[in-house]
């Protein structure tokens, strides 16, 4: 199979930072606008898949290794669980940052207001950890599917990379 032409590679490299910034914006502003962890993570993962389609899986496999992606996904999952366990003074999953003056603790006024980033309690941190988990998980799945297809078999039962 021929490798993709120069036009495809150039346009994909130009448009990839915009997709990443848009996806991270939707993850971080999950408590003010429609969006959140799962939606923004899917958008950013589709940006990585665009790079994979444009450049071919052999080149991308040199830059992104599967072990790094699995470390990122485990960090996301463990931080989600530890944020839930930190509120154990009252109950599991207690929102211990809303109302306190630590980091995200303002209460917005009732009714329509332009959104303030400082509100939300423990919700923005949970959005970020779930978004990291979804990005790493979806990219690892598509990378594994793409790399499996270019395997060659020698004798029956012996596979070479």
């Amino acid at each position, binding site marked *: 199979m021929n490798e993709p032409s120069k036009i495809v590679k150039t346009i994909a490299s130009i448009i990839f930072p915009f997709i990443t910034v848009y996806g991270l914006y939707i993850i971080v502003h999950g408590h003010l*606008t429609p969006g959140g962890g799962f939606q923004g993570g899917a958008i950013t993962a589709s940006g990585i898949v665009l790079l994979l389609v444009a450049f071919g899986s052999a080149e991308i496999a040199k830059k992104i290794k599967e072990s790094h992606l699995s470390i990122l996904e485990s960090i996301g999952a463990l931080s989600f669980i530890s944020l839930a366990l930190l509120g154990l003074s009252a109950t599991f999953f207690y929102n211990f940052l809303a109302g306190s003056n630590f980091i995200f603790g303002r209460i917005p006024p009732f009714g*329509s*207001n*332009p959104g303030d980033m400082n509100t939300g309690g423990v919700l923005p941190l949970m959005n970020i950890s779930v978004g990291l988990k979804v990005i790493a998980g979806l990219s690892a799945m598509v990378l*594994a599917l793409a790399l499996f*297809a270019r395997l060659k078999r020698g004798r029956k039962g012996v596979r070479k990379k």
Partner: protein
Amino acid sequence: MIYNIPYMASAILVIVGLYAVLFKRNLIKIAIGITVLESGVNLFLITLGYRENAVAPIYTNLPEGTSIPEGMTLPVPQALTLTSIVIGVAVLALILSFAVKIYQHYGTLDSREVRRLRE
């Protein structure tokens, strides 16, 4: 009867997906049928929580004159639909990876030929 169009659309999606699962032999077509069936169920779940002439339940820059509990749609079915969509993605990924492995081992994707338990 003209106001039940979303329920009719969800029923049509479920019927089309069920036809693809029951009467087709290619494994990829069965996977597509499972996805269409799951989309129909998600559409039904999210149309259960609608009110007449209501806006989304988000307080940032509300339009003028929306009454606070009665002018907003219900947020709980939307949250349940989010979870259901993610679970559908996970099921589809596992189905496709098994289909790739079956094709590499048997050489065909016909569901009547791949029913031996041991090669």
